[in-house]
């Protein structure tokens, strides 16, 4: 059943969407790079342990690392090939981390290894969670938090509602949109696994109105007997944030400092759901993911299924970019990270690659003082006061920021910086302040 909602969460912004250029393009398979470089830790949590050695030949889908503890997931080989070396590799944050250099066999059939299938009918919730962990699944929306850990319902709490996040509010990105149009069966299988794992009684698939085709298509696959509904909400950034989506769909607020489970909800990204539905019946691990490559600097824009570990330089060479490119973002332009080194690789959390050339890059010549226009206050989806927080950050009043002005709730969506007429780098202030506050607390 498709429900069209008129109301959504408070505040928020409307950046130009720029999705038309790729939202009609079907997902296409990307070729293997001559050398695949896999950072071992691609998730939030404890890095996994390497279980292969240099010179070893591996099969596509074979585990290269094993999870080390609960908040840790394994890494699977994206291709059949040989491990050339295990050495430090650059990452998006600029830090070096341990990585595996894999050279795919050019003549291999690249068939995927099957593991221990998880049977939907007979598996217990715990077995499904283990299956999700063993499949190496993390939040594909960009957060890269191990999905099984998120699905584990804490003692004394229960889950009523499973929300499938098909919002994709970042401008330019169309991966979730294409996944919804092309992988409906995987999504519905994934939902069944997820409902069983969490004990949720109903599922809502949340989709923004700019993806009406996807909402109607998924709704048409339902016959009305399933406890699943599709809800279409007005377009507004950052609706893809869990808290905003819960408010938009259910009208509830997640308590400050709390998690969705505190209001009996679990939110899972739609591409992650499809991955669960596709991998678990075969006991396979994640080896590739859908990524939108777009932006004015890209020649062959599109939605590509790219093997994990493909070097960014190889990706950009394959799609072709203009000479005048000046910024490359991993993720969307609102929350994505600007790339400083093209030798980094595609990881599980990469949802998009957006390339801007000189013309699009806005380098504000001048930062003005805050004129207290209040644009940020009316943009912040959490109703924080970014203007005041920005001033407090300048005075290094970190305690006041955290205690009186709820800084730690900020999830850095960037709405405040987006609207600021003084071009104050508010999000940057808040990121820095948050890390200082965290350090002080742990010290």
């Amino acid at each position: 059943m498709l429900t069209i909602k008129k109301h959504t969460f408070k505040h928020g912004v409307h950046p130009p969407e720029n999705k038309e250029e790729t939202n009609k393009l079907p997902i296409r398979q990307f070729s293997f790079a001559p050398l695949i470089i896999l950072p071992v830790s691609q998730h939030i949590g404890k890095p996994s342990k390497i279980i292969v050695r240099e010179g070893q030949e591996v099969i596509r889908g074979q585990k290269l690392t094993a999870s080390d503890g609960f908040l840790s997931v394994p890494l699977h080989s994206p291709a059949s090939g040989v491990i050339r070396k295990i050495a430090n590799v650059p990452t998006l944050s600029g830090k070096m981390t341990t990585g595996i250099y894999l050279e795919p066999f050019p003549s291999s059939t690249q068939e995927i290894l099957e593991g221990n299938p998880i049977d939907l009918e007979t598996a217990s919730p715990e077995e499904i969670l283990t299956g999700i962990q063993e499949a190496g699944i993390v939040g594909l929306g960009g957060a890269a938090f191990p999905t099984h850990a998120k699905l584990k319902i804490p003692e004394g709490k229960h889950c009523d509602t499973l929300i499938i996040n098909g919002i994709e509010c970042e401008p330019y990105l169309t991966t979730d949109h294409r996944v919804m149009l092309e992988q409906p069966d995987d999504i519905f299988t994934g939902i069944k696994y997820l409902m069983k794992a969490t004990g949720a009684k109903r599922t809502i698939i949340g989709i923004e109105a700019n993806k009406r085709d996807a909402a109607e298509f998924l709704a048409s696959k339902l016959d009305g007997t399933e406890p699943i509904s599709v809800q279409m909400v007005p377009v507004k950034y950052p609706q893809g944030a869990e808290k905003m989506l819960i408010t938009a769909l259910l009208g509830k607020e997640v308590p400050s400092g709390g998690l969705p489970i505190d209001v009996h909800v679990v939110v899972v990204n739609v591409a992650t759901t499809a991955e669960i539905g596709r991998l678990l019946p075969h006991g396979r691990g994640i080896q590739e993911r859908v990524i939108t490559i777009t932006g004015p600097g890209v020649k062959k824009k599109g939605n590509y299924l790219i093997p994990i570990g493909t070097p960014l330089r190889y990706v950009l060479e394959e799609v072709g970019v203009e000479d005048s490119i000046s910024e490359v973002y991993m993720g969307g332009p609102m929350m994505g990270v600007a790339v400083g080194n093209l030798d980094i690789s595609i990881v599980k959390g990469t949802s998009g690659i957006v390339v801007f050339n000189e013309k699009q890059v806005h380098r504000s010549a001048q930062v003005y003082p805050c004129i207290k226009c209040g644009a940020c206050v009316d943009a912040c989806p959490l109703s924080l006061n970014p203007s005041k927080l920005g001033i407090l950050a300048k005075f290094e009043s970190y305690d006041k920021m955290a205690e009186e002005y709820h800084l730690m709730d900020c999830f850095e969506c960037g709405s405040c910086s987006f609207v600021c007429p003084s071009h104050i780098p508010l999000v940057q202030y808040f990121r820095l302040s948050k890390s200082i506050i965290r350090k002080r607390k742990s010290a």
Partner: protein
Amino acid sequence: MFKQTLHISTSPHLVKGSSVEVIMRNVVWAMLPTAAFSVYAFGWNAALVLVTSTLSCVLTEHVLCRLSGKRSTVSDWSAIITGLLLGLTLPPIFPLWMTFLGGVIAISVGKFLFGGLGYNVFNPALVGRAVLQGAFPVAITTWYDGFGADRFTTINSSLFAAPFMKPVVDGVSGATPLSAFKFDGVVANTADLAFGFVSGSAGETSAILILLGGIYLVARNFMNWRIPVSIIATVFLLSGIFYWIDPSKYPSPLFMLFSGGLMLGAVFMATDMVASPITKWGVMVYGAIIGTLIVVIRIWGGLPEGVMYAILLGNAISPHIDRLIRYRVYGTSLKSS
């Protein structure tokens, strides 16, 4: 391929595209019709006052920036707003040296002393005007009738009064509608008030043009419409109540709205973003307080006009309004926030 160096910046990588300079410039555009009308009504006299006050503010800002070793901030257009506003609050034959002094005080005391743009507690133009009112009580209440036949041929001699001499009071005539009402009980025609065919400060005459400027700014999203609306509504309601009680003693609400500096103050002065509260509810309270003060000062105060003091008081309490009235932060209960 990849000849260029990659630029690294932090998210968000998109901006909406407005800037302080654009906002300020548009406020100046919005004030121009009002300024033009005052020149039309009062001739070269008003033009000289406006040019002097604007030049004085811009020069002061530039010199102070240079003296303190900072880059000049004249290009952000905010000093021009202050200059124009100050000029519009002065009588059209206000001695030019006093006008110049007002601009210097507005920028130096009203703005620079507090830290420049963004840090001023009070609307700088009103600080300048308040000092002038205290220092030159006679000159600042020396009005001049508009639409004189010779307004584009002669220039009033009191404009060129020598500094620190007893001002030459020349061509004194035409009490403002507010003082006429307050001291003589004469009520002006509302239509004359609205269109600006009355005596008064250079810019406080044409309510219609001021409102048009305000509507332009609201339409472009450069002004918080709640401030003028709440001031106007409060003044209308409060004075309406008194008028209803005793129409012979109290002025009609329409007279209250269209006389004096109310429109200029409500639209262009109380809306100074820096000196007004930041939340939707905060600005409503702020507007209501200013509106109440205007009515109180006009009806019971010793002065015929109260807009300036009402706004200055509103500015002073604005930070406190922001401390008391905040949005409820997502996920918190009203009690804990």
